[in-house]
């Protein structure tokens, strides 16, 4: 749905809003010089007039700072890379530029994507636009918040254990984690190579789908990437039948589960969906499986931050969670341990992957809450295990490599709650169609 405003008008509206509100929300780390943005918006509007514009013409886009964009600092919200100017464009950025998307700036995030709350940023936490006392979620905190705050149309985040879906849920917006390998990681600064995916965040399912369709695709520069089917936007919103499984998994805050259950009942009644409860074995070990792999791979990924070529030595300039992961990874990889913890976790991960594959033979979609509890207050004391437990429902999708999204379906205590909709690998079309229908039942923003 392209807005009736010109790109230039829209841009000016967003810039106004950012000037007015961002000092209280701490979302943007870098905004392009206004004159540059205006020139580009004008160029895009010309193209639209000439009928030569790309699919993203008219859309203003924010980017997470672990993605390389020439002209910006890919700081990863860290002091380590605060002076690192991107030396090349990530593949997804090239694609966005080719389709005339207007990149407005780099948004705040958890440091090196290490976090689920937004609190680990070296530049201070992002505040949740719905309630600024609360965390916005993480690690793509700024990406979700900039949409919720009305600062831009779409944003790019990255998801390793829930980092797109978690903040999407807390901020009441739509976030998608694509099937692993379906979006190129070339230019994405690694957290955990086996799980990382770049994905879209937007106000609605349609816009998120559009951005996803632009950025996906096999890329020579990412040897693991795979081709995926073109997404059909026209099918979104059409009445269709689906076999739905509701995840049978006890979570901390029962009110959240209740809300999800109610919504599913409502929608399935209207559309004649077949719904039953589904148990996935071993997902109660998802967190214990995830973190050893992440710690190990992050340790490896950060060996290049030795301060010789760019930035500073990471161990000297990072915050507590980043250091925890680096040192934990260093411990696991010590040759005397023979990588025991790492290989054990990889094997459990395979087990969970197989469980989901089995489940998806019986059903199209698995639905659950996105997060097991409501977001805490910024700065509130929280243990490591408590923080990690936010990811209990989102991590399994990263372990299995399938696709999942969060769609806002309502509020508890005035705080947004997201429904997680998961499909099998490369079944994005099904997932998005269900998401679009669910969206129709959410509280309109």
């Amino acid at each position, binding site marked *: 749905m392209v807005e009736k405003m010109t790109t230039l008008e829209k841009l000016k509206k967003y810039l106004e809003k950012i000037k007015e509100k961002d000092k209280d929300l701490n979302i943007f780390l870098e905004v392009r010089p206004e004159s540059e943005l205006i020139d580009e918006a004008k160029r895009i509007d010309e193209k639209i007039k000439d009928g030569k514009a790309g699919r993203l013409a008219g859309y203003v886009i924010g980017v997470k700072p672990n993605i390389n964009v020439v002209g910006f600092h890919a700081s990863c919200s860290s002091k380590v890379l605060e002076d690192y100017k991107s030396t090349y464009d990530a593949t997804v950025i090239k694609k966005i530029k080719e389709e005339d998307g207007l990149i407005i700036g780099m948004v705040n995030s958890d440091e090196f994507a290490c976090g689920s709350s937004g609190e680990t940023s070296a530049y201070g936490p992002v505040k949740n636009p719905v309630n600024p006392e609360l965390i916005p979620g993480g690690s793509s905190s700024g990406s979700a918040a900039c949409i919720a705050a009305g600062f831009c149309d779409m944003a790019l985040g990255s998801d390793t254990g829930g980092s797109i879906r978690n903040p999407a849920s807390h901020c009441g917006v739509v976030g998608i984690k694509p099937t692993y390998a379906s979006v190129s*990681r070339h230019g994405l600064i690694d957290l955990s190579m086996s799980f990382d995916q770049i994905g879209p965040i937007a106000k609605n399912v349609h816009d998120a789908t559009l951005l996803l369709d632009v950025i996906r695709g096999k890329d020579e*520069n990412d040897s693991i990437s795979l081709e995926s089917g073109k997404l059909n936007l026209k099918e979104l919103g059409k009445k269709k039948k689906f076999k739905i499984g509701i995840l049978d998994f006890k979570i901390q805050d029962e009110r959240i589960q209740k809300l999800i259950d109610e919504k599913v009942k409502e929608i399935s009644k209207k559309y004649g969906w077949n719904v039953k409860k589904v148990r996935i074995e071993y997902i109660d070990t998802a967190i214990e499986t995830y973190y050893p792999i992440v710690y190990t791979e992050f340790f490896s990924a950060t060996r290049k931050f030795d301060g010789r070529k*760019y930035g500073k030595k990471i161990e000297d300039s990072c915050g507590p969670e980043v250091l925890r992961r680096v040192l934990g990874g260093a411990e696991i990889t010590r040759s005397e341990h023979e990588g025991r913890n790492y290989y054990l976790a990889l094997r459990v991960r395979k087990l969970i992957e197989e469980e989901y594959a089995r489940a998806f033979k019986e059903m199209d979609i698995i639905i659950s809450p996105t997060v097991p509890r409501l977001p805490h207050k910024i700065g509130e004391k929280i243990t490591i295990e408590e923080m990690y437990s936010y990811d209990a429902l989102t991590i399994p999708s990263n372990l299995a490599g399938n696709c999942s999204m969060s769609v806002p379906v309502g509020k508890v205590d005035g705080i947004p709650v997201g429904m997680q909709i998961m499909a099998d690998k490369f079944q994005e079309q099904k997932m998005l169609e269900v998401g679009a229908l669910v969206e129709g039942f959410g509280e309109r923003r």
Partner: protein
Amino acid sequence: MLKVGLEIHGYLNTNEKLFCRCKVLHGKKHSESNVNICPVCTGQPGSKPLLPNTEAVKKVIEIAIILGCRISPEGLWQRKHYSWPDLPKGFQSTISGPHSVPSGTGGKFMGIRIKECHLEEDPAAWNPITGEVDYNRSGAPLVEIVTEPDFKTSEEVVSWLGNLMSTLSYVSAIDKKSGLKADVNVSITGGERVEIKNINSFRKIKEAIDLEFTRQEKNPPKIEETRTYDEEKKMTVLMRTKDSAMDYRFISEPDLPVLKISQVLINEIKKSIPKLPFEKMKKLVTKYKIEKRYAEILTKRLSLVELFEELVKKVKPEIAIPWVSVELLGVANYNKMDVDEIDINPEHFTKLLLAVESGKISELKAKDILRGWAKGSSPPEKEIEEGKKIELKEIDKIAKEVIKENEKAVKDYKAGQKNSLNFLIGEIMKKSGKRAGFKETREALLGILG
């Protein structure tokens, strides 16, 4: 008793680097620094490897086959972590280490057992004196060949290495002009193994082994050590002991799929390997009925096969054989170089030998020209023209001069001393600037003296 093992890195002959499409620069001549670079080979944040270069993979398999290795059908890429200024990612991507089977294992080449050979990427070039880092070579594909400690002398090592490099460059698997890097493991009976890292010429390898052998005999090492060869001080220097050994923290590479080497590919490569220099040499010896003493030299020096093959296209084998197997080696020895280090263009050498064959220049003159090629051959046309044999009239003239200047020698000759004739001939040839041929000079002299 000396035991030596080698870990050799050879530069594979490809256009592109291993994990990116940057050009690989060949030869030691350096172009501008830091030009053939991209986000991948400079380890920029967020960069990922492309799939490995097919040519590089094929060449490693070719090398493994030539070395008589068993080929592993699957290769699991590994990250080998360590911190060093020349390592942009903080790890090296390799198919080796405790969780991965190298592409080639359990072979044998010219009497030495091969433990394994595998594919890996070159780090950048770091100058420890200035601190400057050049990423031109970073990411270039390398083959690493590891031998068992089967060598017993330093001569054996150098001659085997020469043959190895010649064989591999003959089939264009490696780029000989880029040189080699070797880690040399030296131990004596009753002592622990010492590794001498990163030696890049045959001469230095021999020196290092000899020096290390002497050092170890005086004081057998009690723990494993890693040392470096200091050429100026002519000694090996301790870098680290096994106690402080590097922990490479190997993990499987999450950014690359398993390398698949199908039997079809292996067969295809086997068929495409040309006849190896050793086989060729044996055939040449038979074909040209090369005498045993020359044949022995030639078969030990496979780099000479290529040269010989080129020469006999135009030059008579009887001429080519001694010039290649004796004269050229003589020049190398005199200059304390290895014959493989002399850059001879076959075209230049052919022209030179044709001039000898046709009698245009004397052998002595030709040897002179050859001696001047120690630092690399050059087109000999000018020197041949300037040094060409002089006419009989000229020889006569010089002969008469020499006879006048050497009355005693003339007398001795006439008294029956044959050596004096040779002396006089020598003087005439010298005076002629070696442009008088031996035969012609002798004839002229005898003509005068009777």
